[in-house]
């Protein structure tokens, strides 16, 4: 037959009119079927209907209820019945074993006649043989084939080209032929074929008919399968053998056995209540010995109708269609359970098992180009190669020793290869339960690899196909439950943190103290989704997504992830620590570019312009902001220099110490310590004693800010800054100057004042009339508003101020009176009223000049409750730093009140004087006793007890975590606590006998050394 003819073929579809037994009942009654079959396989001639057994009961539960009474009565009988049956059965089996050959002979005889009945060319067959059975299609096909060959050279050859059947299409035959007539002729006189309908298969469907849809995994003994239905649904089973009929297999499965212990009735009831029994290996000892259902034969336990092997597995026959043989992927756990042992002990067996059963066999998806692999079977076994390419089922590899083995590219099926790892390799799990974990290979047994996880330092056991060589340690997963990487989450009561790394159920979080904690996802608090706004060092509004640069010497450029109170969490790829996430106070960052970009003077800012200023530290920035306000709002309160100890820096009295007695304009009157003489000096020629940089700037800045309105350059603010050479250079460019330059307009306009009150959150405010300075202040306000008692004062102070648009202060600002003795009304009460002023940041901004922390408010004036240490202040480390930076100069040593017992002190010279000619200078000791202005100190050096004037002593601040500390000033004076951590100038202290944690300035703390 030529090819051209062949193209004309037609497919005929013939309905094969077999009265197929419907499989419906199978669905309903799966277990029963299997049950029935397995039993009949064993004792086919024995009627066991009367036997009451486990499985049947399950199926006949409804029936049973009806017949309960009856059944109960016949239990005894049926037991006996069954026993006799079983005895017979056993004797029969015994016989079977004895003479298998004889039996075979018997069978041969018995079925010899039947096999003749299926000959295709038998002309006449008794009608009863034509009764079709399901699945005869296959026989028909074979018959037709035989017929074709028989008739090939006869007069009437069978003129068909092909015939086939689909297993899943019962009752249909497909015949390929050139005409309908040929087909009819061909199927004439063929057994089992009762043609009812013959149709031509449409061309489009022809390919479908021949397409094998899913590639069925080949079932072979040892492979795994899962039960589709019934009691064992989803359970893993192992195929032991395939029966001759090829539609059933014998499987090994872990039984889910309901043991009868209390007799039938109880059992019945219990079963109704419970779900399916758990998987448990059969143990004959669990069964009541008097239970007649239990018997033993050929090394099997037979219980009820089930056969258990000596290890306790259930072995039963199941139909292949009731098993799922594709994509089984048994987990290592399941296999472990199946092998019934701890994985460590029989790992070798397990490896073998997993290989033979196909579990650990890799598929092409598992291989990646460049990976090292090993050949596992064939003549090139153990060849080490590198994957060159992967297509479909073929993996091409180049042998690793390609110089020696000049083989070129070799191709293998995926299941002939396995990934090659060496002990100590760094790998990553790419599939399964441990997905995305990384670790070092500890041990390799076949395809089973033990890995030491990097994160948990625990061992995990995985198949080599689920591993991949990994360079990185990090995981790629970016979500953990509801959380994403870089989310801001609540940690505990008042901390927040940014997730910097996620690894399975743990994640690393950078909290707002700069510490990295490893927290499990369960312990993460709520997510902060609010998009915070803040202002940077120059008052530009910054929000998440903006690019900023830090003002410290590193000038790190980063993107804002979150703004949380005064903190900005930043992310920069270039920064290796903490996965590139770090945080910075918003005052320490500068907007580089972003939608809110605006310069101080309202013009768009070229990039370089800020860099000239960015060396200024945040104290400067704070000052500038304060200065502004004062510049605008006029002078309120008393001069901050008043009453302070200063050193003269110029003139005939250069170097002399004195106390500022009076301030007016730019002159101060200083009473010298030496001879009580009062001299007048320009304000810029005095230097505050014991003052740090920030304070000095602060006062001078304030001064200059005010002056600048009057036309004077604010250079003074820089003149005294010892550490910033570039600051002086900045000269007229000091931000305060700019601020002032830009502020008068909005401010002198009375109608705009409500904006002050509006705070930083009013959108209109942000968009429109905002001046950077305002923004800065309003953000300061918003910081204060994080409700806590000590700040409420300042809050009210500010808002008062805001709500009275026509306060004298504004007038003052407008006319630019540099020093307005009439302080604005809202503030005057606040000075005496709020004991917290020295430490509360709020008033400090508007009131710069008036409320200096080191003005002669002696520590005694720092009434309790207003200390910078507020226990419940969530924002302390951030916004609170304003306060703290000012508390720095709240030197506890200004008076002798700090002295208390059992703290470590150091002996220092004071004001040029030295105790005992400096013999004891810098020696440490512990205060034994305090006596007004003297202390008894036990020196560390020689344990000598000396009395020293308190002024020569300084408390030793704690410098390490976990030290015991004693509070030396403030509300909590004399309390003892443990220092948890140190954050800049703050110490985080847990008080003894108190559960809360307090945040305190380190200067308020001293090392506690109890008398032993």
């Amino acid at each position, binding site marked *: 037959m030529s090819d051209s003819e062949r193209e004309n073929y037609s497919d005929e579809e013939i309905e094969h009119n077999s009265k197929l037994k419907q499989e419906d009942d199978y669905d309903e009654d799966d277990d029963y079927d299997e049950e029935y079959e397995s039993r009949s396989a064993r004792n086919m001639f024995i009627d066991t209907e009367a036997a009451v057994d486990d499985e049947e009961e399950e199926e006949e539960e409804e029936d049973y209820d009806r017949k309960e009474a009856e059944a109960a009565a016949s239990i005894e009988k049926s037991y006996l019945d069954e026993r006799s049956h079983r005895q017979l059965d056993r004797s029969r089996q015994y016989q079977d074993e004895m003479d298998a050959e004889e039996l075979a002979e018997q069978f041969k005889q018995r079925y010899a006649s039947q096999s003749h009945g299926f000959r295709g060319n038998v002309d006449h067959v008794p009608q009863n043989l034509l009764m079709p059975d399901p699945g005869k299609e296959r026989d028909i096909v074979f018959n037709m084939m035989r017929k074709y060959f028989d008739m090939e050279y006869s007069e009437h050859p069978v003129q068909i080209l092909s015939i086939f059947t689909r297993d899943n299409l019962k009752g249909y035959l497909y015949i390929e032929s050139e005409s309908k007539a040929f087909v009819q002729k061909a199927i004439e006189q063929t057994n089992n074929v009762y043609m009812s309908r013959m149709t031509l298969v449409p061309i489009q469907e022809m390919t479908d008919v021949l397409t094998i849809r899913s590639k069925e995994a080949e079932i072979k003994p040892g492979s795994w399968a899962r039960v589709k239905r019934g009691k064992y649904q989803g359970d893993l089973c192992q195929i032991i053998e395939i029966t001759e009929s090829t539609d059933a297999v014998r499987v090994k499965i872990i039984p889910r056995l309901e043991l009868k212990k209390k007799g039938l009735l109880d059992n019945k009831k219990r079963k109704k209540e419970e779900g399916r029994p758990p998987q448990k290996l059969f143990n004959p000892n669990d069964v009541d010995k008097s239970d007649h259902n239990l018997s033993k034969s050929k090394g099997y336990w037979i219980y009820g109708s089930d056969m258990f092997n000596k290890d306790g597995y259930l072995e039963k026959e199941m139909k292949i269609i009731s098993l799922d043989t594709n994509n089984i992927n048994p987990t290592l756990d399941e296999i472990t359970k199946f092998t019934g042992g701890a994985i460590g002990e029989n790992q070798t067996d397990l490896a073998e098992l997993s290989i033979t059963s196909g579990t650990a066999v890799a598929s092409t998806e598992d291989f990646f180009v460049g990976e090292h692999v090993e050949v596992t079977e064939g003549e090139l076994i153990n060849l080490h190669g590198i994957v060159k390419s992967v297509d479909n089922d073929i993996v091409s590899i180049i042998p690793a020793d390609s110089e020696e083995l000049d083989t070129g590219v070799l191709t293998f099926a995926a299941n002939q290869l396995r990934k090659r790892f060496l002990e*100590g390799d760094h790998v990553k799990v790419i599939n399964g339960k441990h997905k995305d974990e990384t670790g*070092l290979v500890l041990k390799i047994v076949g395809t089973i690899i033990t890995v030491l996880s990097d994160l948990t330092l625990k061992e995990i056991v995985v198949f080599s196909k689920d591993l991949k060589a990994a360079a990185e340690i990090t995981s790629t997963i970016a979500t953990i439950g509801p959380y994403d990487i870089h989310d801001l989450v609540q940690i505990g009561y008042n901390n927040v943190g940014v997730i910097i790394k996620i690894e399975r159920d743990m994640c690393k979080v950078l909290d707002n103290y700069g510490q990295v904690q490893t927290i499990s996802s369960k312990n993460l608090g709520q997510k902060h989704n609010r998009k915070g706004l803040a202002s940077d060092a120059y008052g530009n509004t910054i929000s998440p997504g903006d690019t900023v640069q830090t003002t410290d010497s590193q000038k790190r450029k980063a993107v804002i992830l979150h703004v949380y109170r005064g903190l900005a969490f930043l992310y920069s790829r270039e920064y290796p620590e903490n996965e590139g996430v770090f945080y910075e106070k918003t005052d320490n960052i500068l907007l580089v570019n972003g939608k809110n970009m605006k310069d101080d003077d309202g013009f768009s800012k070229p990039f370089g312009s800020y860099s000239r200023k960015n060396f200024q530290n945040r104290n400067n920035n704070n000052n500038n902001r304060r200065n502004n306000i004062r510049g605008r709002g006029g002078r309120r309160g008393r001069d901050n220099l008043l009453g302070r100890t200063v050193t003269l820096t110029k003139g005939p009295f250069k170097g002399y110490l004195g106390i500022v007695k009076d301030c007016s304009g730019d002159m101060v009157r200083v009473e010298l310590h030496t001879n009580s003489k009062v001299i007048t000096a320009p304000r810029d020629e005095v230097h505050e004693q014991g003052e740090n940089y920030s304070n000095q700037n602060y006062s001078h800045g304030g001064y200059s800010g005010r002056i600048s309105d009057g036309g004077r350059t604010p250079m003074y603010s820089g003149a005294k800054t010892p550490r910033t050479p570039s600051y002086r250079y900045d000269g007229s460019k000091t931000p305060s100057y700019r601020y002032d330059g830009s502020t008068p307009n909005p401010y002198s306009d009375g109608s705009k004042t409500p904006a002050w009150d509006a705070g930083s959150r009013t959108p209109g405010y942000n968009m429109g009339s905002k001046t950077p300075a305002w923004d800065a202040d309003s953000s300061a306000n918003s910081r204060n508003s994080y409700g806590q008692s000590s700040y409420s004062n300042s809050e009210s102070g500010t808002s008062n101020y805001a709500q009275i648009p026509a306060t004298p202060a504004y007038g003052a600002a407008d006319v630019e009176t540099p020093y307005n003795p009439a302080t604005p009304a809202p503030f005057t009460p606040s000075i005496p009223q709020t004991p917290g002023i020295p430490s509360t940041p709020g008033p400090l901004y508007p009131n710069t000049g008036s409320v200096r922390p080191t003005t002669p408010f002696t520590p005694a004036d720092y009434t309790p409750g207003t200390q910078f240490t507020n226990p419940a202040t969530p924002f302390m480390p951030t916004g609170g730093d304003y306060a703290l930076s000012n508390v720095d100069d709240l030197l506890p040593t200004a008076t002798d009140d700090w002295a208390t017992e059992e703290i470590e002190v150091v002996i220092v010279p004071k004001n040029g004087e030295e105790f005992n000619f400096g013999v004891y200078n810098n020696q440490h000791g512990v205060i034994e006793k305090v006596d007004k202005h003297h202390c008894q100190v036990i020196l560390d050096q020689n344990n000598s007890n000396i009395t020293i004037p308190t002024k020569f002593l300084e408390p030793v601040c704690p410098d390490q975590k976990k030290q015991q500390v004693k509070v030396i000033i403030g509300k909590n004076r004399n309390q003892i606590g443990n220092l948890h951590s140190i954050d800049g100038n703050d110490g985080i202290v847990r008080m003894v006998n108190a559960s809360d944690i307090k945040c305190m300035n380190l200067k308020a703390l001293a090392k506690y050394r109890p008398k032993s």
Partner: protein
Amino acid sequence: MFFLKNLTHTILLHPQYFGPNIQACLIRRLHDEVEGTCSGRFGFIISVIEITSISRGMLHPTSGFAEFKIEYKAIVFKPFKNEVVDGIVTSVNKMGFFVEVGPVTVFVSNHLIPEDMKFDPNSNPPSYISVGAENQQRIANNVNVRLKIVGTRVDATEIFAIGTIKEDYLGCI
């Protein structure tokens, strides 16, 4: 393995240190900043032993900081696979034990401990004890061990290794 490496380091020096002792200051800074650090490439820098050269300082126009490039020789330590090292046991648990080999922490898993050494959870401190041997070995905290490095994991800032004592001449020393 220890190496003598020529390395460079850049120091940004604050103007407050500009003065007669600038050299000393730079050297001190170098020691502070470099010694004890770990780079994935060179390993741990154990000690600076010689300063080869210090470049002229370059002022940063905006900050006033001066930038110095210092070339120096330092002893670096980098653990390699298959290297045999000595260390001190720092902690022992049933998974294995940790050994400090200088700055590197090495984990010896119980898979890589000879079969005859068993973890004895009842001992105090917990230890691995060889059973049946005549000269009984005992691995507990602060014991010196010799081990072979099986694999290393090199981070940007840390090196971690796993080791084995399941070979001849390894174990307690």
